[in-house]
């Protein structure tokens, strides 16, 4: 067990180091989500006048989005990095060591979680700087960091699956817009009960991303909401479990060592 822990720790360390050393992987997940939320908050402020809108601050309402959007960036970055390992033969180097397949996946995901955590700390700091106060206080901010790290891990494992299945960084980048569609057809800009267009409300209701956003949002604007939080953690865990299964299956095919 301690050997596996060592393997996971070292692989996670590598994952974090190589990402932190590439500004193109670090800066966009910090800048774009905060930029988007700032622009949206400025443009969609009148939405708060809608009857039943849960808060007077659209910025506070929309602040949950960067946490999920950052996780989507994690998917792409983590997948692209793993695909690069496959293409360069680095995965073969790892395969020739006594490394366990589970250690590779867990090391990978641990690295993604660390980066997801760091991103989330940045978004929390941004929220405090722009004057948003969390209804659940410091404890709520901590739960957001945990939830956001879990979401990053779940999506990061999805990225690992895509990398192991396709072996191509380009294929992973091609899936990024597709993942973004999930973000935009969610409740990111309007509470589901206030979405007037029927098909959009239906799409947002069946879209798991809505529940991830609503869980984070509840901690910022509503207070402790067991249902919203439970759903967010359950959806993140379900995406994570499905991604782990898919990634393990793809890894078995990719690591054809005897």
């Amino acid at each position, binding site marked *: 067990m301690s*050997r596996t822990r060592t393997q996971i720790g070292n*692989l996670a360390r590598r994952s974090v180091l190589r990402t932190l050393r*590439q500004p193109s992987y670090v800066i966009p997940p910090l800048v774009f989500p905060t930029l988007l939320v700032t622009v949206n908050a400025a443009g969609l402020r009148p939405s708060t006048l809608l009857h039943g809108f849960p808060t007077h601050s659209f910025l506070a309402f929309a602040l949950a989005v960067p946490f999920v959007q950052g996780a989507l960036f994690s998917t792409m970055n983590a997948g692209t990095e793993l695909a690069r390992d496959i293409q360069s033969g*680095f995965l*073969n180097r790892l*395969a020739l060591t006594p*490394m366990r397949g589970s250690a590779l996946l867990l090391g990978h995901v641990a690295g993604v979680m660390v980066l997801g955590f760091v991103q989330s700390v940045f978004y929390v700091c941004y929220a405090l700087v722009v004057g948003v106060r969390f209804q659940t206080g410091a404890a709520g901010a901590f739960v957001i960091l945990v939830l956001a790290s879990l979401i990053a891990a779940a999506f990061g494992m999805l990225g690992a699956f895509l990398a192991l299945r396709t072996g191509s960084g380009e294929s992973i980048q091609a899936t990024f817009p597709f993942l973004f569609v999930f973000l935009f057809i969610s409740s990111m800009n309007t509470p589901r009960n206030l979405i007037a267009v029927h098909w959009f409300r239906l799409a947002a209701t069946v879209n798991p991303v809505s529940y991830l956003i609503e869980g984070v949002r509840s901690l910022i604007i509503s207070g402790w909401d067991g249902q919203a939080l439970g759903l967010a953690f359950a959806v993140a865990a379900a995406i994570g479990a499905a991604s782990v299964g898919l990634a393990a299956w793809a890894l078995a095919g990719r690591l054809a*060592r*005897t």
Partner: protein
Amino acid sequence: MAPASKGIVAEGLVRDFKGGVRAVDGIDLAVAEGEIYGFLGPNGAGKSTTVLILTTLLPPTAGRATVAGFDVVHEGPKVRKAIGAALQEAALDPMLTAREHMRLQTALHALPRELRRRRGDELLERVGLAAAADRKVRTYSGGMKRRLDLALALVHRPRILFLDEPTTGLDPQSRSALWQEVGRLAKEDGVTVFLTTQYLEEADVLCDRVGIIDQGRIVAEGTPAELKATIGRPTVDVVPADHEQRHRVAEVLSRFGELTRASPHGVAVRLAGDEFGLADVVRALDAEELHVEQLQLHAPSLDDVFLAKTGRTLEGAEQEQERPELVGEAG
């Protein structure tokens, strides 16, 4: 199969890929402990596929192989514990330093924590990278990357080392340094080395024995000297001063043996036996008053062996071979 062999043994090794491409077609070989065995052939001949099978990264379609006494299909983890490998293209992380690579590799090989740093430093020193140990690999030259690749393969003191085209793309100085290190590993540490190459000189200088592979089959095997001896006598290549005199030169040369492939505008003869030498050829040409622009004595080379066994030169085969579309890696 010799079950007691602690080196490498392969019997009837076959590997097919999708689309019916047979990359390895019934390879038999035996490499003794401490031997440097060279696998010589053009690109796409099946060298890398064979290495992937022997290093347990690719299961064979048919046949059997043992490495360090362990079956490559059924005892993969034991094989991997006994081997080190530097596969084609130095597989390194450009964003990590050499020291960080060492740290990762020593940890994955489960070296005791207190030994990791020492072993890493020792190997970096050995391959001449101590001064560059804290530089990111993306700043390294091709030779430095190859040396780091070799050092990483040695972390767990393997008994058998697989090197897949370790000097491809390196300058002569880096190539020579790597040969020296590989030679030392075999001589001083008793490491068995299985080396693939497309360089004749590399096989000739470095390897105790050479297997020549073409289209997935071993077409010749032996020490470089033995292989060259199978070709026999040296050739004399003559370019007449007057190119119109080639037929007369050919008549003279044919007294000394069988005419063979010559340089452009030249005529060549493979000397038939010990009784003839270069001096005899020169005297005969002189006697016929044939003036010569160029005259060369060629000792047999491994390229001559390849030509004799396949009807092509290694360089020619290189151009002919098209790398097939394979699932996974093959060479």
